[in-house]
């Protein structure tokens, strides 16, 4: 039997205790909830930031190793001409090469070994890891460190805008499924190669003169669809890129931040012919973006009966009023309209998402970086 002093909590006490506890718990819950939401918001923001950082770092790394690039319509795609390098000297007559990365080469397809200004061509018969077997011996000594890439060809005649095909000097360097660039235009999917006639997956958008270089691209980065929010996706692809399944997602949530393109380059065209010896060139409709110390290239690689004309690379020592002063004179004359391009790709990405964890909060980041070509 309970004694008077040993009775339990009264109902009122219980109610009060529960009420107080509820208040305490609710208070903590509010505090925890805020913390959880903040954590989710920050986590989301970090995620939004990480996506472009990782994706652009990948693209930038590959771009540095490239020798040339093309940017597709609207700045939504980027095609790179990548090179690998010899890991060992190759004596004259060598039928095997050791390269750093054979992924940019292909069995049965010709390659070129580049020594400063000259190219030697050979055809690959087999690739095993980093060892490349050639169908015939090399003609000259090649040194470790020299660049190796797929062989290129040139337009055999003018190619017209709207044409779905064109003729090249040498069709053996291309095959169905290749990505190619024709002069400044690309990346383009090759559907078929019949003799020296190359058929594309989509018609050419620009006209090109005979002799303009047609070069296989090693890799393409593309912002899918319209490259707009929501759900934009950047993919990477190396072959048969007309097939969506071959385009491997690199990052979700990436889009081009209007009005800037995902892939851009600072380029202009010569307003007037530049003779050999010109040390200052003026551009049409003076474009923004050319800055002192930028490295530029004047003209594109072109092939003619006398061999290849490489673009002239120079450094800008002064830029004003649409005219550029170069570090040294041009050695060839260039026609009005010749492309003058900063030898770098401008990458600009916008990552965007609506974070449901924090009530549909819009989270975004815009990242931009400029990557110079080093090969």
């Amino acid at each position, binding site marked *: 039997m309970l004694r008077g002093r040993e009775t339990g909590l009264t109902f009122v006490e219980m109610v009060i205790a529960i009420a107080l*506890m509820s208040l305490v718990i609710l208070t903590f819950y509010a505090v925890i909830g805020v913390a959880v939401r903040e954590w989710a918001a920050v986590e989301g923001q970090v995620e939004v930031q990480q996506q472009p950082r990782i994706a652009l770092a990948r693209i930038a790394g590959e771009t540095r190793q490239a020798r040339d690039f093309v940017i597709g319509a609207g700045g939504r795609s980027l095609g790179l001409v990548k090179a690998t390098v010899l890991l060992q000297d190759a004596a004259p007559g060598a039928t095997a090469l050791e390269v750093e990365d054979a992924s940019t080469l292909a069995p049965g397809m010709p390659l070129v070994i580049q020594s400063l200004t000259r190219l030697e061509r050979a055809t690959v018969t087999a690739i095993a890891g980093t060892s490349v077997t050639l169908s015939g011996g090399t003609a000259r000594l090649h040194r470790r460190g020299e660049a190796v890439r797929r062989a290129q060809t040139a337009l055999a005649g003018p190619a017209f805008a709207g044409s779905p095909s064109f003729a090249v000097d040498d069709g053996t360097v291309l095959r169905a499924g290749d990505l190619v660039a024709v002069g400044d235009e690309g990346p383009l999917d090759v559907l078929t190669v019949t003799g020296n006639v190359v058929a594309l997956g989509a018609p050419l958008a620009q006209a090109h003169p005979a002799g303009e270089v047609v070069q296989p691209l090693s890799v393409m980065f593309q912002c899918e669809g319209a490259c707009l929010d929501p759900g934009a996706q950047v993919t990477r692809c190396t072959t048969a890129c007309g097939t969506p399944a071959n385009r491997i997602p690199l990052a979700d949530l990436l889009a081009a931040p209007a009005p800037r393109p995902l892939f851009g380059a600072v380029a202009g065209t010569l307003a007037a012919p530049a003779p050999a010896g010109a040390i200052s060139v003026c551009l049409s409709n003076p474009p923004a973006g050319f800055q002192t110390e930028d490295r530029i290239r004047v003209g594109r690689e072109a092939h003619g009966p006398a061999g290849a004309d*490489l673009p002239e690379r120079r450094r800008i020592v002064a830029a004003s009023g649409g005219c550029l002063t170069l570090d040294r*004179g041009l050695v060839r004359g260039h026609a009005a309209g010749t492309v003058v391009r900063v030898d770098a790709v401008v990458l600009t990405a916008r990552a965007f998402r609506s974070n449901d964890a924090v009530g549909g909060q819009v989270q975004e980041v815009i990242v931009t970086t400029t990557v110079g070509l080093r090969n």
Partner: protein
Amino acid sequence: MAALRRGESGAALVTVLVLVVVLTVMGVAMVDLALTEVAVAFGQGDALAAQYIAEAGVARALHELDLNAQWAGVTDTLGDGQYEVSVASAGPVRTIRSTGTRGAGRQVLTAAVRIAPRFTLSTVVGNTTVAVGGPQSGLRLENTFPSAGARAVHANNRLGQATAIAVDPAGAVLIGGVTANGTIAGITCATWAWVCDPAAGLLRFPRLDMDSADPASYRSRARTTTDPIDGLNLYFRGGDPASRCMAAGWGFGPRQTQRCWDRYVHDRGGAIGALIATPVFYVEFNAAERTQYALSTLTITHRASRSASNGGGASTLLIARPAGVVLNDVMVASIAVRGGAGTGITPPVGWTLVPGGANPIDNGTGLRMAVYYKVATAVEPASYTWTFSSSQRASGGIQAYVNVDPADPIDTALGQATPSANNHSTPAVTTSLDGAMLVASFAVASASGGGNWAPQTPGLAERYDVASTGGPQNLRTASTGTDQLQAAGGATGVKTSRSNNAAPGAAHLLALVPRRITVDCLGLAAGAREALCLRSRPATDSNGVVLYASSVPVQVTGMIGTFRRAGASVAGDINLENLSARTADYAQQSITGDPALVAAGWIRVVSTGAAAFPRSVSVTGILYAFAGADNPGGGCVPPSTCGDDLLGSGAVGIDVRHGADLVGLTIGGWLMSNGAVTLLDAAANLGSVTVRYDAAAADVLPAAFTPGAVGNVLLPVSWSSND
């Protein structure tokens, strides 16, 4: 058991404990997440820092390699990070591997650069002076190699001339930098689009090892390399048993080195070297050997001689024409007169002072002797009169010869004053052909009457012996003319005659060229010595008969060199025969580590006239000319001195004066000359000269050209970082 006091009952502790546990778990989780984010942020920062540190490592390597081509690498700190740089060498290529680390970040960058000696990036490297362009347009000299270190022209100006580089812009399109160790004339540096620096200092001018005993010298290589078609070597020297010229079935003697070359080119149908690994065609003429070679030779004979004195002295000396002289006979006159250098001598019309050293010869104030020659015309006077600037005693004679080459009568000549004695000797000379007639003239400043002289050299025939008369014997002169046929070309030795009176004298020796059926080189002086002729038309004799129908080189793979060492000087030229006579295009390529053309003397392209058809002449590779001086010193004993730079030569090294219409001359590679360089288009026509830098020539460098520790240019080859 103690009773609960009022107020001490309930579950607060439990509740608090539960809350504490929950909050602790949540707190730990949040802190953990936060720490993860912090770690990610730091990791990102470290990775970025590592990238830049690795870039700094590459920049450090480029700087160090610029200072020292053998730099192997370093590990160094930068801020709170570090880079580890290693450099692997493969020939001229350096592969730089730079690993940057900071915290957890690590980045590896790999780049390859080529080390190129600075002089290998100039289209023209003159060790003395360079002249580019003339009044006629058609010359293009350029260096479009994509490097800021590339130059079109550099001149070391070793001999300190007032102008190091002279450009005539009216006749030259010049593309590229111009640098010199001296004045640059003809262009305005302030407005030049490329580098223009008259104070650029000296570039290395490494010497090639042409003829040492080292197996790697070019002569050694030519002797040990065989042409698989006939199993004979690539060494061309007439009369040398070690040369293919004396192999069975060839048998070309010491005066037929050029013929040996012509035969070889002919046998290969104009295409040489393609079947041979790194061929070196080494041509070594014999001393003073002529490019022109004889197919047959007539024998020179003495027709007649006459002599006279002016008795006790006069201001003239009259000598009758030797009997029987007819058209194209060659007469040699020797005139001795008192008074030494103070006595001027004026020859009769048509007589020419014999060229060569020391003529007239003066022996103090006592005696002067001068030797003249004349090719007889159809009508000759009955006598000839020499006139002196004052009245002096004089004596002399004329010797006439049959079957001397009237177009090129004198092969070589040399005179000297002789000390007071009875015996007087001429200097020795070296004849450049077989069947030369040696004419030795002697004079002495004293005479005892008629018959003063007696030849001492066996075989030396006396043709006249005459003396002035009157007064003391030691105020007279005595002269004698002698001759001797030399069957085989080469050194003559001295010729001696004895005078009755011992007195100061003079002696002179000349060699007359026999009339021959010859094969010549168009555009080259008739008496050209030790000059290889790269033919433009088939070897044809002076009667117009083609000797070797395919002796025009058309396709050449490898190096052609001419070189002969003679004490401190070296001899051997390369001449491209007048290009307007080209019967086919010419293409030479040598890009596997040897120059294309190397000459001990000059490399010369002098052409005029019009070609029948448009022709292309191209040489791809290095052109290298010693300009007659393999300085410093006369010998090259590898490895002690062969790596030394050449010091310059006052002679011409490379001489391109191309004026042949319709012929395009292209030299791709680079030009090096120890002497002066001249490049111009010599005529206003459709011919052109293009000299351009061709990196193919520099892909594999001659051993002597390999990069030194300093003075190099770094050329980016590739970038293959794994980023």
